[in-house]
């Protein structure tokens, strides 16, 4: 077993080389970052247009929605930046190149995911942070030390929830080879996480809270900061939900890796 510090050091070395290689295509980096910038503002644009015609969305004002949206942007960034290679599992499986990941004395998920570091995701993170600061100032939120620590913990767990959903979906490749449809669905669900969960009822609310808990990526945790008096006790369990979900995903990954037999090509 290697120590965490050792993995961290290794990760830095791998990514430095990766970034050097990517920087050969500077124009591509710039265009991709612009694309990321626009795509990170799309759903917010929808909220903006809607809240121009009605005063609030299920009781949430535009500025509160911007805060929730900013939380969402930051929470999905680690998935985008560190786990983007999840999208390529299907190609490696199809072409038989996945075999190489079995032959290193490293944690396989670590080794596999470290092969990509999505630079354009940094744009998303920057947009998220900028919006969070902006909304906090406009809403006069009081950032005490405790609350900042709480923000970091909730963001960490929200990021884990998002990573778990995408990585678990990409693992479908181990059984059905083309995991794109499953990933596409997971990706689409991701876009609904900044919506106020209070607009849903019945099956949808249940599914978004307990089955595929996208509510914990943005809406539930940001309530702690926006309306602490209304928070349901369940929300404080969100760090456990993040860790628990990641454990399940890791279990699925291990199962998949062990059952993979190749496509014969």
């Amino acid at each position, binding site marked *: 077993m290697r120590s965490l510090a050792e993995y961290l050091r290794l990760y830095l070395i791998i990514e430095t080389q990766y970034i050097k290689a990517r920087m050969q*295509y500077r124009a*591509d980096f710039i*265009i*991709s970052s612009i694309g990321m910038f*626009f795509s990170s503002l799309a759903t917010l644009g929808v909220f903006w*247009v809607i809240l*121009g015609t009605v005063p609030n969305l*299920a009781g949430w004002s535009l500025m509160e929605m911007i805060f929730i949206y900013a939380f969402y942007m930051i929470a999905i960034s680690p998935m985008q930046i560190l786990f983007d290679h999840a999208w390529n599992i299907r190609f490696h499986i199809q072409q038989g190149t996945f075999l190489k990941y079995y032959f290193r004395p490293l944690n396989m998920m670590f080794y596999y995911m470290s092969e990509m570091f999505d630079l354009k995701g940094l744009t998303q993170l920057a947009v998220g942070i900028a919006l969070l600061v902006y909304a906090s100032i406009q809403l006069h939120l009081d950032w005490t030390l405790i609350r900042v620590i709480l923000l970091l913990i909730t963001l960490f767990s929200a990021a884990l929830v998002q990573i778990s959903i995408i990585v678990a979906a990409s693992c479908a490749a181990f059984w059905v080879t083309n995991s794109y449809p499953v990933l596409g669905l997971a990706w689409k669900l991701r876009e609904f996480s900044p919506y*106020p969960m209070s607009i849903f009822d019945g099956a949808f609310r249940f599914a978004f809270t307990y089955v595929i808990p996208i509510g914990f990526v943005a809406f539930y945790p940001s309530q702690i900061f926006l309306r602490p008096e209304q928070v349901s006790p369940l929300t404080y369990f969100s760090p456990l939900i993040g860790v628990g979900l990641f454990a399940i995903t890791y279990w699925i990954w291990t199962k998949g890796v062990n059952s993979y037999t190749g496509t014969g090509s």
Partner: protein
Amino acid sequence: MRIYLPIARATFMVGLVYRFGFLFTIIGNVVYLGVAYYLWKSIYHYSEVIRGLTFNETFLYVGVGSAVFVLLKTYADWFIHYEIREGNIANYLTKPVDYQIYNLFANLGSLLVSLLAISIPTAIMLGLVFRVKVAFGIGLVLFPIGLFLAFLISFSIDYFIGLMGFYSESVWGLSITKEIIVTVLSGALIPLQFFPDAIQRVLYWLPFQAIYHTPLMMLTRPNQGLNVFLPMMAIQLVWAVLLFIAARLFYNQAIKVLRIAGG
């Protein structure tokens, strides 16, 4: 025509191979419809009519919009870009086919697959599960024409982006930027009527609304007169022709920089 029709047929057959994928796309659309239903329900909590649209009309617009979106999303930009970068385009240069027409028909084939496998089930769901009602009027007759013109415009934009493969290494950034601009400014996510008036007036003249807003209005408000629909279709036609020619000229220029390494 005789040489291009089999191309559409071939992509249609290839598309059918990926049946497993349809299931997830349909599930995705059902979830989207559900989310859109609740979202607009909560927006219409305040009044019966917003910006001249009732809840039923708005939901029909957005719901059919999602079905049309799947229809027009042919990934042509990704595919063409890939072929240029990999050098596969050489296969077409040696054959007596026009690359643009070839791709147009190939996309028509995959459009038919999506129509049968995804759009029609989504539309049925819209009627049976969500009980959306469609009014009668001349718009219903014009809808297929409007949709076809929308396809031509959407294809030309995608083809144009794909041709950037002659100049750039990766298409991700361009494709995403295009997709966001098209979906947000076209009415694919929110009816155009919800935009502030000044922005609406500008959007009316752009090709993006011609892709979604025009055909969707033919379904949501079919009983408007021809004096409303004909100018909208004229804008569609002008953009369809303009973009088609522009893409053609661009291709003739871009093909000159093509270098393919042997191997």
